[in-house]
């Protein structure tokens, strides 16, 4: 009987400790995206500077790196050169920046000073950010040539991480 009670207690304790340990190792701000392996939500937004409308559907047939960012976000400054460099090195991949909760003049100033190798659109009311389940910036979505989201990256992306995502969609 004692053995039964002890083993039951041990199983329950082990399960509890495992769940708690797994929780401790997680980033509390990270939200698992239910959109991974789903079709990328449709949107058509205006390009910063030119005002031209960019429709995500027009990129079908090409992998897309969709980066949500803002000028007030420090980590976005950090990853900006990485995205620019990779966009120049991979013309077969469409890079697209989506800025939200920001001011167009500030975005233009940022892009003028730091350069831009790809178009940036403005998400005025954050509707597209909501459709993509964005919880903060930066967040990057990797979309394959069929328009399916294959990965979501939270926080500033490094060259190595981006290369590994691209290897997945360029296979």
């Amino acid at each position, binding site marked *: 009987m004692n053995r039964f009670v002890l083993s039951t207690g041990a199983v329950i304790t082990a399960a509890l400790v495992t769940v708690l340990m797994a929780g401790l190792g997680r980033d509390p701000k990270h*939200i698992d995206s*239910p959109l991974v392996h789903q079709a990328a939500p449709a949107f058509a937004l205006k390009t910063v500077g030119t005002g031209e409308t960019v429709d995500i559907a027009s990129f079908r047939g090409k992998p897309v790196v969709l980066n949500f960012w803002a000028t007030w976000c420090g980590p976005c400054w950090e990853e900006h050169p990485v995205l620019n460099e990779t966009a120049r090195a991979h013309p077969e991949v469409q890079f697209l920046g989506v800025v939200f909760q920001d001011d167009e003049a500030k975005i233009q100033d940022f892009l003028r000073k730091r350069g831009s190798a790809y178009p940036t659109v403005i998400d005025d*009311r*954050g509707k597209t950010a909501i459709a993509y*389940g964005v919880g903060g910036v930066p967040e990057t979505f990797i979309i394959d040539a069929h328009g399916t989201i294959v990965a979501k990256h939270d926080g500033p992306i490094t060259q190595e991480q981006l290369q590994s995502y691209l290897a997945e969609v360029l296979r």
Partner: protein
Amino acid sequence: MIVALVLLLIGAPQGAPQGVPLHGDALARRTQEIASGLRCPVCQGLSIADSPSEMAVNMKTEVHSMLERGYTREQIETYFVHSYGEFVLLQPRSPVIWILPIAALVFGIAIVAIMLRRLAAAPRTKKIDPDVARVRNLVKGTTS
């Protein structure tokens, strides 16, 4: 234009509106009610109705706009769950969340009950010191 709109509605996770478009006070009340059940993704346990963050304001505006177009509460929640997952609901839809703690409690009570029953049923054998037993036997021998 109409074809594009129809395609957009069909493609949208919430589908075409299934309710009655709301206006005025009813719209404001319903927006507040639904927003109170949706979690602000950039806050610590706050609903989008309670958070002043821009993200929460944008989400609340979206709820307002969807109600205005005739979407039901279920459709609106489905739309947000499609983007953010069940995490966005302050009261999860899955009954497992509510059933699991009750099941764990019942399981715990059952174990304690079984333990107590077995303890009560066990024969009460007391280990007696051999010297004490010898003395008792000797005393018994002299008295009988």
